[in-house]
């Protein structure tokens, strides 16, 4: 039987690199995704190099320069305690860019642990998990976060926990739906015929094949998480002061909006651009993966 003998010998490492490049190339095929990525990367840059982009710290208070507009020393002005707004925005980027992915990561772990068995085993396991998820999803998201944070207090860890609990049901349902589909495939039956235990099958056979829709969903959720962190900050349930927190900046500054709009404006623009950037990136990726179906 003639076989395609024009295949040159390539090492496994080279093949893996090629495949990685292919996946990355997917991003560049979509202008939307590229735009989103650029925006996000700008913020990552700002967050990473914050100390070099401003010589103020976000905590320095200058009583002589309260609520001043933009000037030569303070590019975005100062807030009601005399702190440099640009410094607070730049360091605030660190907070949000750290907390949002981490909370989504924890949400993913929770969702995976719930969704995989529900989809794979079905039956009473599925019913139990779905009812748990239903009870969490019955709460409006903001209300849920408020309840959790009021109960355990405001701190970065608790913000992560709150967002993780809020986001886990959606992820669990997605994983469950994908599992329900994938477990009918023959390769899962082949794994059973190899004597694989259910845990091995769930994590080795099923989970890796959920990658596509899952990655897009998680990226979108990072965007939402950033938005919720901002919202929590605005409601006063975010990180305790004086931590630089964009939502908190809007909350503190909105009382003074008529005289000095800059803290509120800068924080709002920051949140909007970051969330829109994340969404564009996720959306663009999703379009690309669906385009030639």
């Amino acid at each position: 039987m003639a076989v395609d003998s024009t295949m040159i010998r390539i090492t496994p490492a080279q093949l893996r690199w090629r495949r990685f490049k292919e996946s990355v190339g997917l991003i560049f095929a979509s202008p939307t995704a590229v735009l989103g990525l650029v925006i996000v990367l700008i913020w990552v840059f700002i967050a990473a190099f914050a100390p070099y982009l401003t010589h103020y710290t976000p905590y320095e208070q200058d009583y002589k320069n309260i609520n001043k507009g933009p000037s030569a020393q303070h590019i975005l002005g100062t807030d009601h305690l005399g702190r440099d707004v640009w410094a607070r925005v730049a360091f605030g980027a660190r907070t949000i860019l750290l907390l949002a992915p981490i909370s989504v990561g924890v949400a993913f772990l929770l969702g995976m642990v719930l969704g995989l068995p529900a989809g794979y085993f079905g039956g009473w396991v599925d019913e139990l998990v779905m009812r748990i998820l239903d009870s969490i999803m019955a709460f409006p998201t903001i209300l849920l976060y408020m309840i959790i944070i009021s109960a355990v207090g405001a701190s970065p860890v608790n913000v992560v926990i709150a967002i993780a609990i809020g986001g886990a049901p959606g992820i669990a349902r997605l994983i469950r739906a994908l599992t329900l589909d994938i477990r009918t495939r023959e390769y899962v039956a082949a794994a059973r015929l190899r004597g694989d235990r259910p845990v091995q099958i769930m994590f080795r056979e099923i989970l890796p094949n959920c990658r596509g829709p899952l990655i897009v969903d998680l990226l979108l959720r990072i965007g939402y998480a950033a938005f919720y962190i901002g919202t929590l900050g605005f409601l006063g349930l975010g990180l305790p002061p004086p931590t630089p927190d964009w939502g908190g900046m809007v909350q503190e500054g909105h009382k003074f909006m008529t005289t000095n709009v800059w803290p509120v404006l800068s924080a709002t623009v920051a949140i909007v651009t970051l969330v829109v950037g994340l969404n564009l990136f996720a959306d663009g990726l999703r379009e690309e993966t669906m385009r030639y179906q």
Partner: protein
Amino acid sequence: MKEDPILSVQNLAIAYKTRKGYIQAVRDVSFEIMPGENLGLVGESGCGKSTVAYSLVGFLGRNGRITNGRIIFKGQDMQSLDEKTLRKLRGAHIAMVYQEPMSSLNPTMRIGRQLAEALAAHTDLPAEEIRQRCIKALQDVYMPEPESILARYPHQLSGGQQQRVCIAMAMLNQPELLIMDEPTTALDVTVEAAVLDLVAELQEKFRTATLYISHNLGVIARVADKVGVMYAGELVELASTEQIYTHPLHPYTVGLMRCLPDVDAPRGTRELHPIPGRVPSPAEVPAGCIFAPRCEYAVPECSAGRPSFQEIAPGHFARCWRAREWLENPLWTKKPAKSSTYVCAKPESEEPILKVEDVRTYYPVPFTTVRSLIGLEKRRYVHAVDGVSLSVDCGYTLGIVGESGCGKSSLARTIVGLETPTGGKMEFLGIDISDEPVERRRREVIRHLQMVFQNPDGTLNPSYTVGDQIAMSLKRFRVVPANEVYGRVVQLLEAVKLNETYYHRLPRQLSGGEKQRVGIARAIASNPKMVICDEPVSALDVSVQAAVLMLLQEIQQQFQTAMILISHDLSSVRFFSDYVAVMYLGKIVEYGQVEEIFSPPSHPYTAALLAAVPRPDPTLKQEFVRLSGEIPSPVNPPAGCRFHTRCPYKLGEICEREEPPARRMSMDHVIYCHLPADTLQAIHPVIRRSA
């Protein structure tokens, strides 16, 4: 006076836009269809035949374009027409019937309304007249009780009935051209036979020109007047049906015919010749003749330039540099059927390695009524496998044949442990496995009972390389020490005729046939004593099926593995099996050595199956044993003999009341029927060959 053709396609070329640029799906296709003529377009998957059909009605989608050529329908150039004129043509002058009847009918509309739509869109008739015409159309396609059909929804009809409705819908406006894209591929063979009869009859009655697309040479031989063979986007041969099947002029056509197992050839008399290599993807098309790399008659000139489509003999076109040579020295002659009495020598002393006794597998039907919530409804079951007993010896092949819904796949899954039987006993290698789903079985049992699956696309995990997946089996069963795993994987790959470079490839880089081979390599990795093959070649192209079947045969001979081959394709079963069991609605109706099954005496169902298989030989005289009705639902199987609702030899009440007894026709051959043995003996053979 020479008539004008209804449809004339000249040098048609079609390309699709993909992420990687334009891909030429159809390169050069030219043919003509006269009024009342049926042109069969044959080719494997990906050759572009469906694309050609869609281009005729302008359904190429946003990313398809006609890059060259003309389509002339009734004297009009189709490309110059605007969308409004095209809409008037579609449905009224050109009609199309598709492969999947379930997706061609709107599930939310009653049949009557859908049929009426077809008429209302193109005529101005009053509602009552439309209704009468719909009833007449349904009668023309032999639908029982047309008035009640009009009131039903598509999901209340079976597949065969749905397809008839689609045909009726297509014929309502009496189109001049009917395009049928693999209309019977999704149907069972007995249902397919009835639909093909219908197509032939309608064509004679209405003199509709037809373009019939299929990959099945047997079906084309039955319905077509002219045949066009397509390969990789080009039409490589075009001739009348007789000429194609008796004096083909292109090596690809010959290759297709030589790689088909013949349902009438006794076991052991027929060799399959698979076509080596694989179909080139549209992006890697060679410079010269596209078929040259796979052609055993190729000479260096063949790769130099692309041959053109020329008329070699009157009405016979071929695209081959050497076509004129084949006129004098035919490439292929039909060999006369050999007779053989293949008798399987059964080992006297050995115990069978698999013994199945009265196994039943029932699936509960989910409740859908309010009464069931309260607990008032009795639980209903799908009787998928309803009392099957068989045994398989070491090194032999048992073929299980039946149509969809007969329970053969459920039986396979039950034996292998993917489903738990509801009753009965199963013994493998002397160990009782009746109550053990595969999760509970011991490793030594699992490694000796492996399975090859039907769908090549689902059989491999897309996230891991080919080699890793085979290695997982080796490591799990500790077949070889860890440092020898790579070597053994390469050995296994070579055993399935794939070379070492396949180790690091991902499944998406493999073709269907290659994936199936990897599935076979994975199954034999643990050196199993028995492999169950569940429709291993049904989803593959014709030229690849032969290769995989022969591979299975080789593996069996080399490793002395017992095999169970499950298939609805009688020809492959006859090619491969030593013993055959015929299943219908969860029960075995006939069991015996392979040659005993394929020759009389037969159970009436077996006779009908044999009669229904379309043979790629237009000169054959076929007995038409047609079964009435459709397969009953396995939720409510008929009492007594399951087959009595469709049996042409039904005796009477006894068939409805009592389970048929086992009639032993010879030492191994059993038929379960109420008919007495001598009546069974007298049922005619279904094929009469001319000398």
